[in-house]
């Protein structure tokens, strides 16, 4: 159940950042990046199938749990290898590592529930449905939306 992002809906309000920090004791794992005046893009863990952070992890703290790239805080020694091994720069180390845990224990991740623009979702079907209907619209309108 990874989080999907539809950046054409993101309004750059950074509510997801605040929500993530609120539920993770001040250190958030989602960052909204602004690309000029074109777009705002929340950047967060992809929960990669072949996760390089888990390969680099020396103590076995980072591991795959189904679709989720899970993190065992008890095992982490704070070597920071995962921080350098993440291709997207979304694992941080501050004495110990911290990363997106998809809000373990909650029904839905806090960022998804909070997003006022519905840009974030955990529903793959919805993400692909939106992309398909956008493509269809683009085809009929000759590029305009």
């Amino acid at each position, binding site marked *: 159940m990874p989080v999907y*992002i539809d*950046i*054409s809906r993101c309004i750059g309000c950074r509510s997801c950042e605040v929500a993530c920090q609120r539920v993770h004791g001040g250190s958030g794992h989602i*960052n909204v*990046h*602004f*690309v000029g005046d*074109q*777009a705002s*893009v929340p*950047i967060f863990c992809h929960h990669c199938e*072949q996760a*390089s952070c888990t*390969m*680099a992890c*020396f*103590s076995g703290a980072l591991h795959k749990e189904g679709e989720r790239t899970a993190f065992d805080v008890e095992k982490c*020694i*704070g*070597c*920071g*290898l995962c*921080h*350098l*091994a*993440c*291709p*997207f*720069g*979304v694992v*941080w180390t501050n*004495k*110990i590592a911290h990363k997106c845990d998809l809000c373990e224990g909650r029904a839905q991740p806090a960022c998804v529930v909070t997003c006022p623009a519905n840009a974030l979702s955990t529903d793959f079907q919805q993400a692909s449905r939106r992309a398909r209907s*956008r*493509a269809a619209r*683009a*085809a*009929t*309108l*000759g*590029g305009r*939306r």
Partner: protein
Amino acid sequence: MIKVDAGLCLGCLSCSNVCPSQNIVRTETGKMRYIHWKKCKEECDLCVEFCPGHALTLVPFDENAPESEVSFELVACKICKSCYATEPMLRRIESTLPANMQKDSEGLEWIRVCPLCRRNIEAERATRQMVLARSRKSP
């Protein structure tokens, strides 16, 4: 007492993180990282156990042995030039990841790019894709 093999040390600071008595001191200036092992009399070997490079060994206490120190020049990011890691740590990652994962879809050697620039690159690519999709002409 802890003996350090400077050739194996990654400069990752795990030892300093796990040391219960703060006997391993880290100092970082802009471009350099120094790790200093005070002479400790403890029989604890937490740092030895948790060293990713297996650079540490527990040896009997010796009054005359000098305190050990290792220094690392930090590697600068290829894009923003900020110093973000030690060379042995990056080498270690290059040796653990399969070769096909070390270059991204556009051939960038991302391991040599700092995490902040990696996030920026990801944001720029996603934006490019979105703009492209918006302006896609009908066939």
